[in-house]
């Protein structure tokens, strides 16, 4: 129980750092948003599950369920609205055109 919880927390912490690193390394705004939203959601879910396994008390589990359901329901909506706003602002075509030469490798390892 403890080992699994610790493993989940290690994975979640690593993913949180990867999400923050993705802000710096990915080529354009939409890709950065994918890094922040997807990796952020997964890392928070892993951290919450690991914390629930480590805490081993009743009151934790339904709160953890509420937070995870809330995050899974709200983060994609917020991310979608932000991506739509960024696309309408015309942020992306220039940046995508800039990133065009390195498109095949970037599309492969940026999206996982």
């Amino acid at each position, binding site marked *: 129980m*403890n080992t699994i919880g610790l493993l989940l927390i290690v994975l979640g912490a690593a993913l949180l750092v990867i999400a923050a690193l993705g802000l710096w390394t990915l080529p354009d705004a939409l890709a950065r948003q994918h890094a922040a939203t997807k990796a952020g959601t997964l890392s928070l879910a892993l951290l919450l599950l690991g914390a629930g396994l*480590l805490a081993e008390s009743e009151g*934790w589990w339904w709160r953890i369920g509420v937070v995870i359901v809330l995050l899974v329901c709200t983060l994609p909506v917020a991310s979608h609205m932000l991506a739509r706003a960024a696309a309408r602002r015309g942020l992306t075509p220039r940046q995508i055109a800039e990133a065009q030469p390195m498109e095949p490798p970037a599309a492969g390892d940026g999206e996982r």
Partner: protein
Amino acid sequence: MSLSVAVLLIVAAAMLALVLAIARMLKAPSVADRIIALDVLLSAAIALCIAAGLSSGRVLFMDVAIGLALVGFVATIVWARVVDRSGDAEEHA
């Protein structure tokens, strides 16, 4: 034992993410990047709430995490609308 290791791990990762996100927010190429950095910052804040709850053994901090998740959702949506509306006014023209 493993509890304090877990708390230490979460705090270290969240601090690293906070530093990266705040630096990104300070020198971002566009407004959308600042909002994305704010999103990561809120994720790190929720992770710190989990660490606080684990280290003190109080469930109360999970309620704070629920509140932070709600506030982050509303904040991101409102900033997205601001970016959407202010498109023609400043930079786009």
